[in-house]
């Protein structure tokens, strides 16, 4: 026998299921008025400093079919790379957004401020990115990934540098489609499968 470790295992994840929207996005589910203020309606308020951008895309399954029921959350710092709650953060940036695939087209849209680069432990410098968390029916534990940007210098990013198969890096990079507009599709499985993170 040995001493007992004082560690409690993390609660097991379960799928968010097909009706996740009634809990997290009631208006989207047809239940407007359930709450006076919903969570994560926008990651920015009027007056946020920096470039306002719009990212659109789809979440696509292993057969090439676009999910109509995916729910996503994003988390990001402000234009200077400072997270909400940290000293000097832009008070107009809440950093968190909830958005869903359109029930008809499957298209999602995220309107936000373009984040700045982030400095981590030991001085690690991350290229500008937005963290994503994706849940839906059939997804047993929320999928983590990141959106990087085609028009930024991603060459020294420590996360992208860890991807051995270099063509897969492209799955994390949003493509510019116009001024302030980007496209970012998420492929859950198969050809062009997005790099998902355990982080």
């Amino acid at each position, binding site marked *: 026998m040995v001493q007992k470790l*004082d*560690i*409690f*295992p*993390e*609660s*097991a994840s*379960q*799928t*968010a299921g*097909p*009706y*996740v929207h*009634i*809990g*997290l996005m009631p208006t989207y589910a*047809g239940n407007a008025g*359930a*709450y006076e*203020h919903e*969570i994560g309606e926008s990651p920015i308020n009027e007056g946020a400093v920096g470039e306002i951008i719009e990212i659109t895309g789809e979440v696509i*399954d*292993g057969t090439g*079919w676009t*999910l109509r*029921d995916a729910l996503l959350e994003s*988390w990001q*710092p402000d234009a200077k*790379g*400072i*997270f*909400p*709650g*940290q000293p000097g953060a832009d008070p107009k940036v809440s950093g968190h957004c909830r958005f869903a695939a359109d*029930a008809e087209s499957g298209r999602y849209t995220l309107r936000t401020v373009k984040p700045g680069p*982030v*400095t*981590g*432990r030991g*001085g690690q410098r*991350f290229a500008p*990115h937005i*963290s994503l*968390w994706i849940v839906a029916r*059939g*997804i*047993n*534990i*929320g999928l983590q990934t990141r959106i990087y940007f085609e028009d930024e210098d991603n060459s020294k990013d420590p*996360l992208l540098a*860890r*991807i051995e198969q270099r063509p897969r890096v492209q799955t994390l990079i949003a493509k510019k489609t116009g001024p302030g507009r980007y496209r970012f599709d998420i492929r*859950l*499985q198969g050809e062009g*499968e997005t*790099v*998902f*993170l*355990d*982080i």
Partner: protein
Amino acid sequence: MAELADLGPLIPRNREMHPDAFDPGYKTSVTRSPHWPLLSLESGPSEETGPTFGHSKFGALDNNLILNWSKGAAPAIGERILMHGRVIDETGRAVPNTLVEIWQANAGGRYRHKKDGYLAPLDPNFGGCGRTLTDEQGRYQFLTVRPGAYPWPNRGNDWRPMHIHVSVFGHSFGQRLITQMYFEGDPLIDRCPIAATIKNRAQLDGLVAPLDMAMSRPLDFLAYKFDIVLRGRRQTMFENKLEGM
């Protein structure tokens, strides 16, 4: 400005405590599960920070599902229950002031969602969602009705056990978790392909709330206790300083 101490990186997720992405018993997971291995990295600022939600966003009835849909006008139909518990992290620390959101079917097993066409009727006085912030000790409470079991399209005749969906934030985006609470004694738990995605029996048992008579209120409601454990952080005296924090 005073410098905040580095709380340390998140403890890497022990994936054996969770379902695999691919589980053929749960058919929808077959085409929605990544095939390639996840990229494992130590957490950084993007995972260690997270959103906060002020009390001003919340309404007085947000954690009372018996009354919140009707704005207090009329109670929902069903077996009245108190769902309560604590949110802690893997090191046993309480997680205070964190957002807990729940959603569920009504007492007949029907969700108020445009995609749910089950023949059990909607309850005009039940919406099916609630939310609250944990207190300083990490405690939370909801008053609701016990959800009904319901059939779902998977194998020929699959039924979901009675369950309440639970979403928790913690203080870091990397702690984000969605799970489900089941009820002690429900024979459908062991027949459910979604519950069965959890291969570790102790982990599945950890999602089954016991009847808690000490917290039940005579002549009013029964109580079920559901504690939630989120990822913890590795705090040693040998971590590098996290710049900007």
